[in-house]
C-alpha cells in the first residue's frame, strides 16, 4: 500500500520538525487529551486503538468545526495514527483522511513527522477506485490551476 514519496506529496500533507525534547515527553503531548488540547484542538482522545473521538474547533462557514476520528495505531512512543474525517452532514463528501505521527529519536531529542494522507484506504468506494488516477490528474492539472488562480 506504500506509495513513492513523490506520489505521496501530491495527495498528502507532510510536516516534519525536530524537537529538543525527550521522545517520551513528545509522545505525552500527542496522547494526553489535556496536553493535546493545548496545541492541537479540544478533544476526547484516548490512546486506545478503535477509540472514536472528535476534535472541535469553532464553527466556520461551510464547516461545523467538528472532526470525526478513530484511533488506528498506538505504538508508544513511536507511532500514532487516527482517521481525520469531516463530521455531520459533510461526512459523506468532506475530507476523509488519516493522520499519522511518527517519532524518531535523534541525538538532540526527537524528529516528529506528521503525515495527513488524502483518502482512507477503506470505505468511500467512490474515491477508492479513483485513488491512483487522482495522482496523475492533479499533477497534470497543476499548471492549469496556477493559471486559473
Amino acid at each position, binding site marked *: 500500500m506504500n506509495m513513492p514519496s513523490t506520489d505521496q506529496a501530491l*495527495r498528502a*500533507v507532510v*510536516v516534519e*520538525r525536530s*524537537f529538543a*525534547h525527550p521522545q517520551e*515527553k*513528545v509522545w*505525552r*503531548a500527542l496522547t494526553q487529551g489535556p*496536553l493535546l488540547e*493545548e*496545541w*492541537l484542538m479540544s478533544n476526547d482522545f484516548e490512546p486506545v486503538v478503535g477509540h472514536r473521538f472528535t476534535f472541535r474547533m469553532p464553527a466556520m462557514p*461551510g464547516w461545523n468545526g467538528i472532526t470525526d476520528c478513530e484511533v488506528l495505531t498506538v505504538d508508544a512512543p513511536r507511532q500514532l495514527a487516527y482517521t481525520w474525517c469531516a463530521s455531520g*452532514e*459533510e461526512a*459523506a*463528501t*468532506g*475530507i476523509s483522511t488519516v493522520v499519522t505521527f511518527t517519532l524518531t529519536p535523534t541525538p538532540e531529542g526527537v524528529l*516528529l513527522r*506528521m503525515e*495527513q494522507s488524502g483518502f482512507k484506504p477503506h470505505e468511500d468506494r*467512490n*474515491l477508492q*477506485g*479513483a485513488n491512483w*488516477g*487522482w495522482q496523475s*490528474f492533479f499533477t*497534470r*492539472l497543476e499548471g*492549469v*490551476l496556477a*493559471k*486559473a488562480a
Partner: protein
Amino acid sequence: MDTATDTLFRALADPTRRAVYERLCRQGEQNVRALTDQAGVSQPAVSKHLAILKEAGLVTERRAGRQTHYSAQPAALNPLMDWLRYYSAFWPDRFDRLDDLLQRMDQ
C-alpha cells in the same frame, strides 16, 4: 455547498471523465466528436460524461450552429484543492504551538 462538493467528487471519480476534462484543460475548447476520437468510448458515452461534468460546473458549453463546443472551468476544482492548502498551513502552525507546550512542560 455539500451537494456541490458531492457532485464535484462524483464527477471526477470516473477515469474516463477525468480524461475528458483533462483534455479540455490542456487543449482548450473541443466538440463532442473531437473528444470521442480520443476517449476510447462511444459518442453517446462521451456526451453523458460531458453532461455530468457540466452539472459539476467543470465544463461549460457554447453552441455554434449545430455544433456544441465544450470548454473546461478549472476554477471548479478549487474546493478539492482547498483542504490541501488549508492543512499545509494548519500543521506547521500547530507544531509551533506544540513547541511552546513542550517548553512549558519543562517548568
